[in-house]
């Protein structure tokens, strides 16, 4: 399976991006195009998830998964915070900000995992898209609370709004609902774009993510050995917890693997923006370098395979 991973064009494009950044090539994907691809990918997985749920209906498994995701996102930052302050030697504010990233999720990691798993006949359930959306934001609340020692801030109203009206949440949930309303038949006319192009777009998008992640790593002045270890340790711990919880609440193997990958993944879009606003005194150099520069490539290249094998093992 590791070999499968490393001959998949999707992963190879990611590696090409990393390579180009390391040799300091001027290769660059126009920002607007990269953003457009991420919107396309989110709309596509949202719709597909919605259609699947429209077919399968609301099941107990769905409810269990949603609840599990919610709990994980709220609680994973607590563990992370402990490690980040003790072992990572970060200040309370910085540790809270980083913890929020690790409780939340990375949409691209999820999409890549879904493709890789599906390619091996292990399709996660459609409702996992809803779980993805659910897990994006609770961690922000826990992270802020940890950073501020539980002191409420005058800005909290703004943050809550920012968090729920967040672009990726609105787009994922919106496309999910559209998929549910339109159903399989209504989706037929628009299917070619969202279906046919999906994997190819993911290739080009991961090319860009490889460039961005590696450039972030190169240009960072904020990482030390402790933080680097934690950026690998945290996904290992969180991913294991995620797979266990998923298996425990009765999810199928593929969905438990996906939940593990969600738990292992760290946000680098929604949460950094929220932290910059809500905790401007936290250092963005730390949280971006850890989540984007290390955890993200680790999960794409190793984590996805690891947690899907773990799910197979315990499932």
């Amino acid at each position, binding site marked *: 399976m590791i070999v499968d991973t490393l001959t998949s064009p999707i992963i190879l494009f990611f590696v090409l991006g990393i390579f180009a950044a390391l040799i300091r090539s001027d290769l660059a994907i126009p*920002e*607007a195009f*990269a*953003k457009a691809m*991420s919107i396309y990918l989110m709309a596509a997985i949202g719709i597909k998830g919605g259609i699947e749920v429209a077919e399968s209906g609301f099941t107990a498994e769905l409810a269990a998964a949603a609840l599990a995701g919610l709990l994980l996102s709220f609680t994973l930052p607590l563990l992370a915070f402990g490690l980040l302050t003790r072992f990572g030697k970060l200040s309370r504010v910085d540790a809270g900000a980083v913890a929020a990233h690790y409780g939340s999720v990375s949409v691209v990691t999820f999409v890549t995992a879904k493709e890789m798993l599906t390619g091996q006949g292990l399709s996660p359930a459609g409702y996992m898209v809803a779980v993805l959306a659910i897990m994006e934001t609770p961690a922000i609340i826990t992270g802020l609370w940890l950073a501020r020692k539980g002191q409420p801030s005058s800005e909290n109203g703004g943050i809550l709004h920012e968090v729920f009206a967040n672009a990726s949440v609105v787009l994922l949930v919106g496309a999910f609902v559209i998929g549910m309303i339109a159903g399989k038949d209504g989706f037929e006319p628009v299917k070619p774009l969202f279906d046919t192009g999906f994997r190819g777009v993911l290739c080009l998008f991961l090319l*860009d*993510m490889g460039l*961005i992640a590696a*450039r972030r790593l190169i*240009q*960072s*002045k904020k990482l030390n050995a402790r933080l680097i270890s934690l950026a690998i340790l945290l996904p290992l711990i969180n991913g294991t917890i995620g797979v266990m919880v998923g298996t425990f609440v009765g999810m199928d193997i593929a969905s438990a693997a996906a939940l593990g990958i969600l738990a292992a993944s760290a946000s*680098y*879009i929604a949460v*950094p*923006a929220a932290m*910059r*606003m809500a905790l*401007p*005194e936290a250092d*963005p*150099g730390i949280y*971006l370098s850890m989540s*984007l520069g290390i955890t993200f490539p680790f999960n794409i290249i190793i984590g996805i395979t690891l947690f899907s094998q773990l799910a197979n093992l315990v499932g």
Partner: protein
Amino acid sequence: METVTRKRIEILVDTPLVPRLLKHARDVDISGWSLIHIDAGGGRDGEWQHDDVTGAAAKTIILMIASKEKADALTESIAPFLDSFRLLLTISDVQVVRGERF
């Protein structure tokens, strides 16, 4: 044409913080503002390029023309977080026509 002297305020700031600063600008009654996108930069913290995907590293210049009084009031008002927000604030003199607007 008759011209008068006003202040040209330029604040270089992380894009996610723009709304906060505009709130301060409105509080001191500054009449208008314009945003200019920064493509890349470098400072004590290393280099960065803008990328729309994460967006977290985006920086923006807030450009405001205002009277000296309002410029001073704005400076006082944002002084407390100049450091923690890592703002770059510069103020210079410009000549404007129809200066009563500002």
